[in-house]
């Protein structure tokens, strides 16, 4: 479970408010979509949830652990996929995955099985992992990052635009994995710009604009509340009004 309690964050001595008193809960067994225009505060909020930046005020609690008080316990539970897959490109795929697995303490036999599984899901030949990531395409780096993030089977998935660069089959498989993970009683929070993905996959969505959470609830409730039920129009109307 993810609990965000009254999170606020501003930059440039308060001139730029990225998050304004945001509160929400992502329960176990849920896939929650995080949607918003560019610069709305999605990535800042996600960074606060993952411990990359500290909120000016408020609290983050992950499965009962307070990020401020027990950051390492929180981080062990989280699997975070960044919106930037260009990390450690001088390493081979195996070296990067092993590095992340070492950091999270994944036993050798377990990680070998998981690498095999994920490689198959994403259509990657394992021989590719022996080469340095400088030679990978964006999509391959994204897939490798996903594998490295999920190799320790985290309870909580926090994914920042995970579908970018994935081919349709891999994107489909990732969505299926998200559903399976949530159905086991775990939590998935992901941000996306693609409303159709949010519509198909999410149990609930949160819409953020200019640092404020302007909607949190189910898709059906959102669509039923508005005439026509077109998600795109609803979203554009809501973010224009905010």
């Amino acid at each position, binding site marked *: 479970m993810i609990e965000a309690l009254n999170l606020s964050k501003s930059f440039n001595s308060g001139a730029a408010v990225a998050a304004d008193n945001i509160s929400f809960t992502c329960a176990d067994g849920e896939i929650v979509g995080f949607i918003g225009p560019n610069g709305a505060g999605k990535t800042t909020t996600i960074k606060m949830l993952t411990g*990359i930046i500290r909120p000016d005020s408020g609290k983050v609690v992950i499965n009962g652990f307070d990020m401020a008080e027990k950051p390492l316990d929180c981080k062990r539970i989280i699997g975070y996929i960044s919106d930037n897959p260009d990390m450690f490109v001088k390493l081979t795929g195996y070296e990067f995955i092993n590095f992340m697995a070492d950091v999270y303490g994944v036993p050798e036999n377990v990680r070998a099985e998981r690498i095999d599984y994920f490689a198959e899901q994403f259509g990657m030949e394992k021989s590719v992992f022996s080469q340095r990531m400088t030679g990978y395409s964006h999509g391959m780096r994204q897939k490798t990052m996903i594998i490295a993030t999920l190799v320790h089977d985290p309870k909580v998935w926090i994914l920042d635009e995970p579908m970018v660069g994935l081919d349709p089959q891999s994107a489909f498989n990732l969505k299926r994995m998200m559903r399976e993970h949530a159905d086991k009683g775990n939590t998935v929070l992901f941000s996306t710009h693609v409303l159709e993905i949010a519509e198909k996959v999410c149990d609930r969505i949160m819409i953020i604009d200019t640092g404020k959470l302007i909607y949190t609830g189910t898709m059906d409730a959102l669509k039923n509340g508005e005439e026509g039920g077109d998600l795109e129009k609803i979203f554009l109307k809501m973010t224009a009004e905010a």
Partner: protein
Amino acid sequence: MEEAGNKKRKAWILGFTAFVLLFVVIPVTVMTGFFTFILTKGLMQTGHPEFGIKLMYGLISIFTVVFGINVIFNELYFEDDISYLLPLPLKPEELVLSRFFAVFIGENMMQFAVVIAVVTGFGIAHPMNVFQWIISLVAGFLLPVIPMAVIAIVGMLLMTFTRFIKKKETVRRISYAIIILILAAGAMMLLSIDISEIVIFIIEGTASNILFVKILDIIFPQTGLIADFMATGSVWPVLVFAAICLLSLVLLSGCARLFYMESVTRLNETTHVQKNASSSQSVVFRSAGMSLFVKEMRVLVRTPAFLTNCVAANFVWPAFVLIFAKILRADLGRPAVSAYFAEQPHKTAAMAVILAITMVTAAMNCLGSDSFSREGKGFDYIKFIPVSYKLQWNVKTAAAMVWTLAGTVPFFAFFVIYAGFDVLSAILVMVMVIASGFFVTELGMLLDSLNPKLFWLDALSALRENYNTVFCMGITIVACGLLAGALFLPVPVMVTCGIETFILCIADVVLYLISMRTGVRNLMQIGE
């Protein structure tokens, strides 16, 4: 509280900048100017005051070429933004010239302070009129134009008419090979120098017969032209210089129009991933700390800019020491060396040099002062992985110390044994080396944690434009000056060395404790 933290950080940065300006940049500039003054005064007695300027400008031009090859190729062909610029309706010469001048200004920022010092030193020793002063400064500013234009033109021709330079890695390897060749050629020439003969050449006005000078005249004719103008005030050399500059830029523009688009669009930067390559690696289990250490070492060794500037830089100084000894025609046999360093003044000088080499090498290798900047846009991982900041900090220190000590301890250990130091002195020297190397490394890391440079397009710019390295070097030079200077006090050198080693060890402990508290806090605040 956040605002107070940011203000404090800005105050520290301003303070360090002022410190480096006052205690490093200005003194080094003044010293360079003073050296030029003394050199010119001496050469005036031979009737050839311009010889010193010619040599100094020649050396500056050599450095321009050595460091400029990689920079120019990178700027014209391998920067990430080029793929965004090519589709735009820009003329190729517009693109090339604008990027050329960007590199020119960047390179000049570093060397113009030296040029000012050189011109000032010469102008005070050999009075010049106002016109000469102004033109000398302008000419000094334009000094890199011709060598850089030549590099750019040759580069464009190579990229257009050859097939082997299609990747950044190839350019780097070629530039490193050229650097090694130049250094080797320079070393060989220096080894063949007889200083007394050079003095005769200068007095007789036949200095151009010296091989090194002959090569300089051919490759860098502008150095002789500017030097002649400064010495004689004759306007013809400077006009010729201006004409050559203009011609080189016109040629560059012409080459760009004819060849640039063809060469840049033929690049093949996206490496082909072999689908059926053998899977030679698999899972390997390590502790989190060891895994971080291995990752750190791999990135250092596999990133060419880090490999040369951070790793290999530690192993260059022995060659210079050997060359210096050879020039002085020193007897390097063991009996002679032992007898030489048995004398107190020589032993003192040796220890001062050991201290200076250790500290300056540790500052120059940027392993400490770039430790967090090297992460670049991947820095966030430091914050979201479940590894304590303290452990991550210590791993980076360990990785930095491995290379710093590898470049000093074996050589100095050999030296103290070869030179016949007694056991106690030898141990003291080695402890001093380790303590001083740690001090500089940890200081660099602390500075980098304050304001790391995380946004860079390529690894080289992470190092070159990082002021944390400048700050670290500044503080190191001052500390080194004080420590090395204190060795010359009228006290037995081993007593002074012992006291200094003790002080360094205490300083290391204090610095480490500060790092674990303030440094770690700085890391937590990055990005906020």
